[in-house]
Structure formats: C-alpha cells, structure tokens
C-alpha cells in the first residue's frame, strides 16, 4: 500500500517569542502512507507538538511556516482558514495531550462530540446523537447515553481521553494526530488507551501520527518511528529497526537512558550529558553534536544530511552506530 496520504517536505515552523525567534521545527521531511501509524518521539521541547500543529495549521499567531505539507496531493500550508475548516474534522483530527484541558469544562460532552458531525456531515440532531452513542460504545465508554449528558469534569481522566478519541473519530478522519495522548494517564489506563488507538486505527484504516516522549509507548504501537531532536528529525525508519538497531547517536543514547525493568539496583543510570540547545540560538550542523561522545568537526560543519540507510530508513548522522556497538541492549 504505497499510497501516500501525507507528505511533509522541508517544513520549518518558527515561532516568535519574547526572547527571539524559536526555530521549533527546522527542515523536517517525511511521508505517511494511508493506514500507516508513525510514531514521533523526542525529548520535551524537541518540537513534536509544534510539528503536529504545523501540519494541522494551528500554530500560534506570531509564527511562520515554509516548506510544504501535502495531504492527498493538496497543499495545506497557506490554505485559508475557511478551507482548513473543511479539512479539520472530516479529514484530519487531533487528540491532545491533556484530556482535562482539551475538553471544554462548561460544555456537555454530548455537544462537543456531536457539533463536528453536525457541521461536517450535516446530520440531524437525533442522528448525531445516535452516532455519538455508537462511537462512545466503540471507544469503550460504558453507559454512553449518560456520559453524553455529563460534563467533562464528571468523567475520569481515562474516560475523558476516550471521549476525546471519540470526538476525533466522529467525522471518520483519514489522519489522526495524537499528541502525547497518554502522558497524563496512569500506566493501566495508558495501556488501555494505547490498545484502543491501535485498534481503531487499524479498524478504520486510518493513518496516525502518535507523538510521545516515551519511546516505549511508540514501540509496540506504530509501523514506523521518527525520532526528533531540537526541531530536526534524527532518524526515521520502521519501528522494529529503529528500536533494534538505532543508527543515530541520539536515538541510541535515548534508548540507553530509558530505565528498564532489569536495571541493577542502586546502579547509576546511563546519562546523556548536557541539555537541549537553546531553540532561539541553535548551533549549526548536527544539533546533537554538543552532547555526543562521537562528534567530530564535520558534525558541526557542514553537518549531516538526512540520508537513506537501508530499507525504508533514513538517518541524519555523520558517525552512525554500527551493529556491533549494540551489545549493552
């Protein structure tokens, strides 16, 4: 199914802030096929949210984007708001990080769930209601009739996130962008939501961008994984390959630093020294160079390009990890 749904090319999204221009997303390119799930991982502040919002076209007022985002062959960047409103909902939908904050506390869940349907599908009130009941049942909300009349605060966090997913699914979008959908939730609920997302994604033959800072979340739920660092993609590839054989030094270090169940008691955790570069003044070349043990002069000047590295894989690293170094894992 080599059917490209979304294609992002050299996308740059710069935001104005009191301290200067934040280069939150800087030259990002990737493709997403129909029915495919891609995981977007990276540390906090690496630009995952800005990237998702740039694709949506929901960036803050003082911002500018260049490059291109084509959805089904149609350029989304620069599309007027009016046209975007036809895409938001029935074509692309988004699930936000914190369900508590992305549901309007003063509007009943029923209305929030049905307003999109009524606008985009033009269905009647009662039909929208019926569909909403079905949707809630599908995302595993018990007693949907009652929940539709409830206000968001009357639901638990997990239920809220299920409702948010139902809202996103309401108009049967082709692409679902889930920005850290489980970060605010408990492990047990996170597990449920992740299972749910994967299920609806494959059942509806939807494409999905699953954003998370937790590598483990992405690992079992996506077909491909993109690792992001300081506004750039470090590496893109099939999930299995990226986790089994990380090529980029950053991916490697990140996997290393992730605590595992079999870590020895009271032993030191492997570190990534240093911190993310200041997004206002990003260094030239590879942005990870300053924290990388394997950096060379060429990393900063001219710096690595995104290069294909095997089947469906590309890496932007001058000194990529080779197979033999992966013993520790």
């Amino acid at each position: 199914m080599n059917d490209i749904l979304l294609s992002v090319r050299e996308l740059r999204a710069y935001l104005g802030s009191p301290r200067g221009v934040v280069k939150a997303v800087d030259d990002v390119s990737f493709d997403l096929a129909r029915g495919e799930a891609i995981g977007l991982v990276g540390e906090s502040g690496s630009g995952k949210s800005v990237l998702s919002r740039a694709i949506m076209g929901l960036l803050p007022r003082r911002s500018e984007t260049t490059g291109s985002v084509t959805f089904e062959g149609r350029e989304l960047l620069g599309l007027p708001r009016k046209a975007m409103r036809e895409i938001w909902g029935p074509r692309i939908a988004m699930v936000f990080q914190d369900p508590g904050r992305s549901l309007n506390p003063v509007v009943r869940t029923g209305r929030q769930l049905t307003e999109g349907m009524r606008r985009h599908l033009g269905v009647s009130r009662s039909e929208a209601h019926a569909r909403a009941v079905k949707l809630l049942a599908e995302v595993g909300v018990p007693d949907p009739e009652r929940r539709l009349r409830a206000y968001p605060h009357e639901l638990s966090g997990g239920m809220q996130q299920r409702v948010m997913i139902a809202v996103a699914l309401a108009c049967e979008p082709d692409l679902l962008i889930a920005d850290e959908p489980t970060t605010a939730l408990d492990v047990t609920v996170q597990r449920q939501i992740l299972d749910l997302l994967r299920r609806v994604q494959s059942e509806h033959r939807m494409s999905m961008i699953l954003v998370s800072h937790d590598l483990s979340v992405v690992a079992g739920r996506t077909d491909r994984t993109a690792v992001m660092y300081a506004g750039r993609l470090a590496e893109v590839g099939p999930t299995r390959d990226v986790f089994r054989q990380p090529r980029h030094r950053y991916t490697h270090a990140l996997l290393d630093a992730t605590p595992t169940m079999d870590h020895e008691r009271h032993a030191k955790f492997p570190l990534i020294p240093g911190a993310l570069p200041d997004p206002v003044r990003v260094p030239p070349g590879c942005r990870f160079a300053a924290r990388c043990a394997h950096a060379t002069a060429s990393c900063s000047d001219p710096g690595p390009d995104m290069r294909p590295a095997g089947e469906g894989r590309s890496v932007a690293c001058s000194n990529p990890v080779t197979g033999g170094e992966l013993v520790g894992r």
Partner: protein
Amino acid sequence: MAGNGTAHLRGDEALLSVRDLVVEYATKGGTVRAVSGASFDVLPGETLGIVGESGCGKSTAGRAVLRLEGAVGGEVSFGGERIDGAGERRMRALRRDMQMIFQDPVASLNPRRNVPAIVAEGLAISGAPKEKQQRAAAEILTAVGLSPEQLATTSPRRLSGGQAQRVAIARALAVRPRLLICDEPVSALDVSVQAQILNLIEDLKTEFALTVVFIAHDLAVVRSMTDHVLIMYLGKTCEFGDSQQVYDHPAHPYTRALLDSVPLADPDHPFRGPSLDGELPSPLAPPSGCRFRTRCPLAQPVCARTEPEMREVRPGQFAACHFPDQNEEQQ
C-alpha cells in the same frame, strides 16, 4: 486486595514508622478518605519505594507524615518519638530532620523569589545570619550540580524542569535532614534529565547519610532505586517486600497488573502481560471488602465481604489478598 494490617512492620529499629494512618479531605462531593489505614516503616539508611496509580494517596501519605496534612488517625513515630501529637514548636524543629521534595518542582518554587533565597529559606527561618545562609546556599547548590553565581539573580520561572528539581533538592538538603521524602521526583522530567536526577539522589543519599522514601509511579525507576517497595491502591496497602522479589514474584494481582501494563521498549513485546480492565473506582465510594475486587481477575464472593489483611506470603514479602497463591500459580 487493598487491605490493611501491620504484619509487615519491622519493629523498633525503624527510623520512621507509620501505623494505621488515615487522612481525609472534605470535598464538594463528600469526604474523601485519601489514605485509609496505611502502615509502613523505613529502616535507617534504606530506600522505601511507594508505588500506585494516580490518586491512591501516595503524596497524601508523604505529606501527612510531615504533618502538612492533618491526619485523622494513626500513629507516626520518627526516631522512636511519637510525632503525631507533637506541638507546633516541636514540629518545626523536627521538620529540619524530615524533608520532602514535592511532586511538581516548578510549582514548589515561589516564582517571585530568587534561587539562593529559596534554598536558604530553611536556614533563614532558624535564624542563621545572612552570611552563613549565603555560604550554605552556595555550597549546597554546588553539591546538586548548579552554579550559584549563575542562579543568583534567576527567577525560578526561568529554570528548566531538571534545574528546578535540583533547586528543590538543594532546598531540602540545606537543613541537613535525616529523612528525605521524594514525591515523584522525576515524573515531570525527560528521560535524559531523569537519569541525572536519579543519579544525584543516589549520590546525595550516601553523602548525606539519608534515609529516603521514594514515591513514584514509574515502576522501572522504583525497582532500581529502592530496597523495599510498598504498593498502594485507593488509600490502602497491597503489597510490601524487597523490591526485586516483589517485581519478580508479585503476590498481589494488582501488583501483577501494574507490572503487566508497563510499556516495554520492544516492538515485538510491547507489554509483559494482559491489560487490566476498568478504572480506579471513585475514592468517594470505594468498593466493599477488598478495594481491588472490581478490577481483579481473581475476584471471588469473599473479596466483597471481607477485607484482606497484610500477611506474609513469602519470607519478607507481605500481601493483602485472599488468594495470593493463585496469583502465583497463574504465573
């Protein structure tokens, strides 16, 4: 599960001992029993982990020990001294021995004061001279890996999460406590920063001869940071024991379910076991008997009637469950 009992307490040598602690909050919907009869103790020099889902009362228990939350019942002893009834004055002195790092590091720093002032607050309250305060603040900031000069004029709002957490640790250590309660010290942080902070806590623990209570919900972190672990559910204790033993052979179905839900960074084995159904019941109306029974795959009628007590299932491992062995068998 979720039962009570004190069988797992280890007697007099404990530095901190908590018995049948009950904490309630009056809320709009009624009274929430955030902690209802939990007991635990910490031996000097050890690290005790407290694990559980959000809202199970971990933070509340930690705060109640420090008397930052009025406990409704139970006994708290520190170094052999009963402190649940201690006067305000005695408590102020005791607080210098028991310090807490709060869940949200950024929120626990006053945005309108500068970092050195925040760190020196404890000394300032005890009336130390200005000069000494400054020196001590600088020292301790260096110890947690921050540069005192650079931070001298910085408002906490401009700190990154990791820096804020370091400042919070520095503030707690500035008064040289014996016991440090860390409430989810890394849950707001990125993996790379998380590792730095965890290593720092390990280092400081040795350097300052600390006894640590480590509250977290990240099971992987708890396993490697702690000696003993206490699993909580809806304000009650479920399981207690050596952390590695508990992880390897969970006796309580809840412990098991928790471990099964942890996502693994493995594309082929995303989880260790099956998913746990249902959600945390409302703390306003907890289920009768064993509080976990509504989600427990092993639940029997007896679970709804009788609340299980903590009992030893294996040497040094205690669980509050009517069928701990079945759990084991299933595995």
